[in-house]
């Protein structure tokens, strides 16, 4: 199964990610998001960060999960390529994210992400599929 596909949006860009579980779909959405920012083949697993999110529902969880990663990229220049879901429910997740700091000599940055938006954000619990549009 394909982990994610891009969705076209006039001003922005979105993606639809799926997995064999909702946890995997969330991890694949993060993978897809970092594929928008850079070529993930160039990223090594040098550092990791533990990210824990608690929200009122799965939509809020997805919004906050991806925004935390946007924040880590913006502030610490961290580019992640693997997301290990340690705990996952519709209102809580704990993940170890693996990657490395941006190195201009080795990593080409393609596109910046200002934020994840709530616009057309969907979490399909039956099909383990999520959809999200970014503001870029």
């Amino acid at each position: 199964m394909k982990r994610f596909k891009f969705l076209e949006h006039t001003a922005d860009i979105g993606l639809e990610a799926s997995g064999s579980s909702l946890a995997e779909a969330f991890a694949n959405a993060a993978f897809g998001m970092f594929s928008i920012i850079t070529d993930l083949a160039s990223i090594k697993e040098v550092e990791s960060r533990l990210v824990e999110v608690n929200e009122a529902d799965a939509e809020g969880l997805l919004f906050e999960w991806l925004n935390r990663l946007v924040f880590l990229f913006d502030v610490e220049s961290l580019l992640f390529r693997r997301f290990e879901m340690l705990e996952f429910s519709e209102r809580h997740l704990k993940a170890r994210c693996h990657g490395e700091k941006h190195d201009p000599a080795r990593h080409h940055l393609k596109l910046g992400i200002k934020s994840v938006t709530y616009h057309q954000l969907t979490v399909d619990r039956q099909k383990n599929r999520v959809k999200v549009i970014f503001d870029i």
Partner: protein
Amino acid sequence: MEAWKGHLERLDKYRWRIPRSYKAGMRVDGLVYADAEMMEHIKEEQALEQVVNVAFLPGIVGRSLAMPDIHWGYGFPIGGVAAMRLDDGVVSPGGVGFDINCGVRLLRTNLSEEDVRPRIDKLMDNLFAGVPSGLGSRGRIRLVGNEIDEVLEHGSRWAVEKGFGRPEDLENTEEKGEMPGADVSKVSRQARERGAPQLGTLGSGNHFLEVDLVDEIQDAETAAAMGIDRVGQVLVLIHTGSRGLGHQVCTDYVKLLVAALNKYDISLPDRQLACAPLKSSEGKDYLAAMACAANYAWANRQCISHWVRQAFCDAVGICEEEAGLELVYDVAHNIARIEEHQLDGKKTKLCVHRKGATRALPPGHPALPSRYARVGQPVLIPGDMGRYSFILVGTQKAMEETFGSTCHGAGRMLSRVAAKRRQKGSSVLHQLEAKGIAVRAGSISGLAEEASEAYKDVADVVNVVHQSGISRIVARAKPLGVVKG
């Protein structure tokens, strides 16, 4: 993408109405400014449905407005304007956008094409080196301790007091570059962490710094009030916003307001329209945080202006006084503001959201600096990097029809993905160079996304606001050099 099949009535050559009767729950009509050809494009996506969605918001008055550069956004359309009553209306972070106080400023110079063209490579190198740009770039300014809070409270004034620019820059900036009501306690630690290292950076995406040449003057008297007096005169256009700080403020408050929707019994067709009553603590807190982000953006453009002046003087070999480089004006095009407008014959305070729209005050408006009292507020409309940009002024008609608002730019026509499919960044670069435009870009592949063909022709956009009378064309400028993030 599915085409929009809603109900649309053509009122005249440039005005289109979406009547309240189109959908139950619309509190006001939609009104869109466009010509017939543009409208065909606009209907290809769901931007008009977003105009409709905005008409559902509590306390909206007048009409849910869209400027001719309208395109599909998230929640609100880009190019949307909505005014809400203070007593029963709402404020929506989505009606401002993630890049709070994204805006444009224009500098005029005493220089002509012959002074700059022979030195353009040196000048562009200076600008590219002097103004940090591109994804992941860090600013040259080191903020110590709580200094970021002073930036958030005082905006451009902080920058000028630190030596970035001239005191007279302040009066030529919307809100004097210091929005009232900024409360730093309403800005999260995360937003500060994102913002602090990025102050004084251009960013990436559609942000740019452009050296332009005046190529047409339509209204010499008004242009003269702005210090623009001849074809071939060199101008500088700077387009950027509040960087990660504004993005995080918007993100924080969208989340907070989504959580508060039930509390205020607000139901919405799209969570990105999340809003809170203007009278509520959540609504007030957002406006106080938004003002901080707006001030950050003004300080950002102010610092950049300072380095632009240095870059020019070094490249051309003259001092600042000789070069001119005065600030003509600085406009915000992603902002919400409490303003006084005529409503049913009475002066009423309203919260006006402009998301991808520019304030356009008419001659005589009290918020104008004295030099523009007779001509109206300068409105700066950048085009795409290969064509031209426009300078307009606000009109009384805009006050009557659009809460003193007009368009903000060309408006995207092709998605970034589609633009990249059409051609490579390197071929866009060659085309620009063939036109005599010197380009400096952090990412060559990123240039493809900003190619001319990805945008509407800004001349068509500006023609609609001019013909419909909500602003007036003053002059046009063509790019000589562009720095892209």
